């Protein structure tokens, strides 16, 4: 079966995955938006007069794109990972395992639904925070490209984590020890240029840094590194992670014994 047929096949599973988070949207969209607004209020209030990263850009304005991207990434990851681990533990994954859906259809459905949730939360955060300090959209296509890629990358990572984890605490470990540090150490709250040399170097190894830097470019027309470099790094990471996720699905890793 080719990719085109897989897109058709993926539709019902994609719809089910979107419905799954939509039915509890207070928790899956509302809660993360509120969290981001709290970040903005606290950090923005404390640091507004002390930090200026780009010329003429106040800290609150600088912070907004970072918060939008962070929420998008974390929720894209949460969607595919939590759906898979819940279905595995409750056993209802069997309903999908019994269907003729190909591994490509699985991939498209889970990553697609993650992207939708990520974009929904990201848009929510943007709308609410922009009300405090409109950040403007200097080069919107960059923002769009990195939002899409970020949602896909984290959706695919969540898929891998969801397949790998056997228990909820393993999933929590993956989230707390990998995803959260990588998002926090990617320049959400600061420019990595303000970090000491070692940490700056380390940040440049983190694909999330390029996601956020490239995304911010879309708002201010200025960034720490070239958006093309960011695009290259993020696209490579997305392709690599997707290839691994597809491979695990094809071999039935931990879902077909």
């Amino acid at each position: 079966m080719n990719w085109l047929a897989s897109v058709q096949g993926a539709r019902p599973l994609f719809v089910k995955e979107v419905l799954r988070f939509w039915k509890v949207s207070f928790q899956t969209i509302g809660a993360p938006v509120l969290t981001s607004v709290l970040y903005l209020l606290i950090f923005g209030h404390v640091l507004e007069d002390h930090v200026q990263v780009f010329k003429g850009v106040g800290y609150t304005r600088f912070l907004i794109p970072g918060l939008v991207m962070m929420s998008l990434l974390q929720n894209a990851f949460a969607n595919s990972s939590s759906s898979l681990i819940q279905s595995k533990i409750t056993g209802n994954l069997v309903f999908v395992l019994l269907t003729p859906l190909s591994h490509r259809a699985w991939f498209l459905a889970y990553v697609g639904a993650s992207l939708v949730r990520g974009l929904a939360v990201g848009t929510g955060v943007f709308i609410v925070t922009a009300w405090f300090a409109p950040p403007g959209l200097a080069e919107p296509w960059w923002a769009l490209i990195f939002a899409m890629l970020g949602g896909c990358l984290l959706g695919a990572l969540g898929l891998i984590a969801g397949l790998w984890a056997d228990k909820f605490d393993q999933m929590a470990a993956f989230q707390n020890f990998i995803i959260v540090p990588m998002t926090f150490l990617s320049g959400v709250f600061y420019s990595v240029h303000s970090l000491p040399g070692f940490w700056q170097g380390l940040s440049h190894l983190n694909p999330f840094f390029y996601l956020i830097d490239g995304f911010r470019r879309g708002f201010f027309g200025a960034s720490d590194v070239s958006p093309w470099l960011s695009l290259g790094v993020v696209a490579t990471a997305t392709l690599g992670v997707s290839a691994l996720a597809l491979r695990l699905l094809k071999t039935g890793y931990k879902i077909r014994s």
Partner: protein
Amino acid sequence: MSAVSFHNVTKTFESGGRTVRALQGVSFDIEEGEFFGLLGPNGAGKTTLISILAGLSRATSGKVTVQGHDVVSDYAAARRALGVVPQELVFDPFFSVRETLRIQSAYFGLRRNDDWIDELLANLGLSDKADANMRQLSGGMKRRVLVAQALVHRPPVIVLDEPTAGVDVELRQTLWQFIAQLNKKGHAVLLTTHYLEEAEALCGRIGMLKQGQLVALDRTSALLAGTASTMLRFKTDHALPPQLAAQARITGRIVQLPAHDATEIEQILAQLREAHCKVEDLEMGRADLEDVFLEIMRSHQGDHAKAGQVNNAGKLEVAA
């Protein structure tokens, strides 16, 4: 073409540092429109075999097809032809009964399936629960939804893995009426169950698994007429002599012993007399499937090599 074909299926896996041979070369076919029973004690490999058929698990070696479609290389066609009712009572708590069935239909490419869904709901006594959330249903109701879910795409081959385990009488009757009706319309049915009277009543042909090997395969009537056609039945308060106890089916005070002819009956009575075993209500009766099952299971006690030699209607081929 067979509805289902198992050819020399083996399954080996590592568990706690030792190798478990869950299936050791199982071969048999289920014909179109057949009602087939797969019996065996816990751990015999029934569910493993069904998991391989359904694509939930992969065989270590061998070949399995559904209506000629290989379950590995042509899995999409194979799964389209299969409707599997899993043993575990699982459900998706996010959805109502109707949503669950609509979603399951869509997985099989059926967008407008409400007429058939309504028919399924009516036949399984679920019509008034259509809009209830899955979480609100009782165990028996959830089991009905599992059956409906397996049938949304009108599969020509229906697989029921212990569908009546812990289920009340009413559902059992509703379920069997409906399944028998589908079977009459040409759907092949593969059933595993621990309720042997169910298998005896429903299945035209029966296969028995023990320790991963097929130890019997024949028409139900032939099995019943075969090895132990008569049973000696009596009640006693005494302990049986060990050689009799080994082959007896004991339910409380009631003892049943397979007795093939007059000589065997005499021998049993002699042994009872020697052991000073006082018996009452002595009678002869026809063997039922449970007697056949116990005798077949016993005759293969700890003797794997013999499994291949059982010859039932030429259908059986077990790799040694």
